[in-house]
């Protein structure tokens, strides 16, 4: 890599949510240990494309820069991943950047991930503890459960698992893998388990757990290594039991 002194980016751009996308090539000076965001910052500093024409700076989203917020997810050389954690030295050139196609594009590489946040409300991805007086400490969680629940809690709703899933698209209502894994996390919590059936009923609705087609791309692509397919299978089992309870009747939550 020593002889290489420029980096070529081919970026899929879009000026507004309704305009059509186009590709623009940029060449920027090489530095050691750059991540993709460092390259985008270089373009922002000097927005001139490969033909030497001055253009608008490329827009993207970022926040934490350490792969815990999920905001900078995009499709890099065909694979959905975080641009903060993707190093240029490990990529083939030219580097192709595209916005994630599952979500509506706001501008350039900025997408609107709101559908996931709406679905977080649908599946009640929280533990209700609000009350008028102090209820004291909740029940304890056993260590074995805590260990796997901690892995699930790493989800940052970045949207990569939705992007790689063949069943999450404009033709289907399927909410996507991350949204099937989170109810498992909240149902594993001893206090959260008190509202278990509400979350499972949400997964039984259209666009819920039945949308999964077991392509298992999500578990391969998840940047946090969350066992998404194990979660989905666990929710398949739990919703199945819940549906029997709903139909035949049951005294337990």
């Amino acid at each position, binding site marked *: 890599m020593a002889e290489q002194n420029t980096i070529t980016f081919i970026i899929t751009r879009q000026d507004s949510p309704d305009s059509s996308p186009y590709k623009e090539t940029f060449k920027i000076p090489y530095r050691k240990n750059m991540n993709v965001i460092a390259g985008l910052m270089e373009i922002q500093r000097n927005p001139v494309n490969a033909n030497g024409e001055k253009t608008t700076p490329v827009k993207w989203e970022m926040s934490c820069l350490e792969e815990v917020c999920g905001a900078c997810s995009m499709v890099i050389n*065909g694979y959905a991943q975080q641009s903060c954690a993707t190093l240029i030295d490990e990529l083939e050139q030219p580097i192709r950047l595209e916005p994630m196609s599952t979500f509506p594009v706001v501008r350039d590489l900025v997408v609107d991930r709101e559908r996931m946040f709406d679905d977080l409300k649908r599946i009640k991805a929280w533990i209700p503890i609000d009350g008028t007086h102090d209820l004291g400490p909740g029940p304890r969680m056993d260590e074995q459960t805590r260990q796997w629940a901690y892995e699930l809690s790493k989800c940052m709703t970045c949207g990569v698992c939705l992007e790689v899933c063949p069943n999450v698209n404009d033709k289907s209502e399927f909410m996507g893998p991350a949204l099937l894994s989170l109810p498992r996390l909240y149902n594993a919590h001893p206090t959260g388990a008190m509202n278990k059936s509400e979350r499972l009923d949400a997964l039984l*609705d259209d666009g819920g757990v*039945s949308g999964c*087609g*077991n392509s*298992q*791309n999500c578990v391969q692509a998840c940047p946090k290594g969350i066992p998404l397919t194990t979660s989905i299978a666990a929710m*398949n089992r739990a919703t199945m039991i819940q549906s029997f309870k*709903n139909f035949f009747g049951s005294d337990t939550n």
Partner: protein
Amino acid sequence: MAEHREFFYRRLHSLLGVIPIGLFVVQHLIVNHFAVYGEEQFNTAANFMANLPFVLVLETFVIYLPILFHAVLGVYIVFVARNNAKRYGYLRNWLFLLQRVTGVITLIFIAWHVWETRVQVALGNVEVSFSLMEDILSNPFMVAFYIVGILSTTFHLANGLWGFAVSWGILQSPRSQKVITYGTLLVFVVISYIGIRTIVKFAYGI
């Protein structure tokens, strides 16, 4: 139940693929394998099956209605996917695509096969017998069509068993899912052999 219609239909679709359709397919391939032991054996077995009591009721509820439901919802499932196996070429993603491709091929094959060997019998044009199949499979194109049709059916069934076990929440751990993947591969090989062996007998007499 009404508000969870999609869930109910999808789980029913998955179940029907195994019971009764999967069981019927295996039974059908095994009974047809009588052909390998000789023309007379096959005709006896085929006549036994064709003259079962309540045969039309059995056919309707064990074969026609389940397959019709499975096919209609199946085609819908094919259309709501945007396949990306080329970009994300993991094994399960290829099997996901193949499950949809073989589903469509199997539907075409079954439609033709039912027309040729069941509707024609009902219309009184032909009779179920060893020689009927011998006639059909004297055409090399039909031999290829039947082999593709059988392999596509057996793949769809074997891989569908895995999908059923995951969708119904039987297989949760990655290890169990992996072990059963090999199990379904074995199922695919065994039932494909039974089916293809019969075709070889009809087509080449060996």
